[in-house]
């Protein structure tokens, strides 16, 4: 069964460094998402992406964040200058198309900022 994959499973970085989290959505899906979950808190929406542009973003998704679908298969989340409070589990999700209404989630990348 097709699934969303994410790499790496765990990333440790120093404060101020740039990180790129990678996701491979399910083939033929058209909508892509990033969510994050800070330890002990709820899963929060960051951004959605469709047709090579951001469709919706939350107030968390500021100028430090960017997303890209560089090659038609990968979907990346870049954090330009990491802060301690960016430490969280980051989930990628994909969805087949409008109206389908089921987001398929990857296993997550745990980001630790020291």
């Amino acid at each position: 069964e097709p699934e969303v994959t994410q790499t790496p499973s765990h990333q440790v970085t120093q404060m101020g460094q740039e990180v790129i989290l990678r996701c491979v959505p399910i083939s033929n899906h058209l909508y892509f998402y990033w969510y994050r979950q800070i330890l002990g808190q709820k899963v929060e929406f960051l951004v959605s992406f469709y047709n090579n542009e951001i469709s919706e973003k939350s107030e968390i998704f500021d100028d430090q964040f960017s997303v890209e679908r560089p090659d038609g298969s990968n979907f990346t989340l870049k954090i330009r200058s990491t802060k301690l409070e960016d430490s969280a589990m980051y989930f990628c999700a994909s969805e087949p198309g409008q109206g389908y209404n089921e987001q398929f989630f990857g296993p997550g990348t745990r980001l630790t900022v020291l």
Partner: protein
Amino acid sequence: AQSVTQPDIHITVSEGASLELRCNYSYGATPYLFWYVQSPGQGLQLLLKYFSGDTLVQGIKGFEAEFKRSQSSFNLRKPSVHWSDAAEYFCAVRHYNTDKLIFGTGTRLQVFP
């Protein structure tokens, strides 16, 4: 503001016992409603969803949920819990004209033999 409340942070049940996990939402209109499960080291897996129609929906792994508009609730149930059901359960809502899922804080289910 839209919100989802899962009042139970942690629930412990014996294997074979029945289960009900509570979820209440605050929304301007009836949203789309979802239950996800997260096992350790795994992503979020959809158990079931409600859009409209029959208020009792069946999902995978023997779970069901009932939508009650008057109570703004969407509680998850299972008649007989198995040890493999131990996991974290998340209720989520989505409005028809937005992309994002809004999640509750989750309920951690522990199952004793």
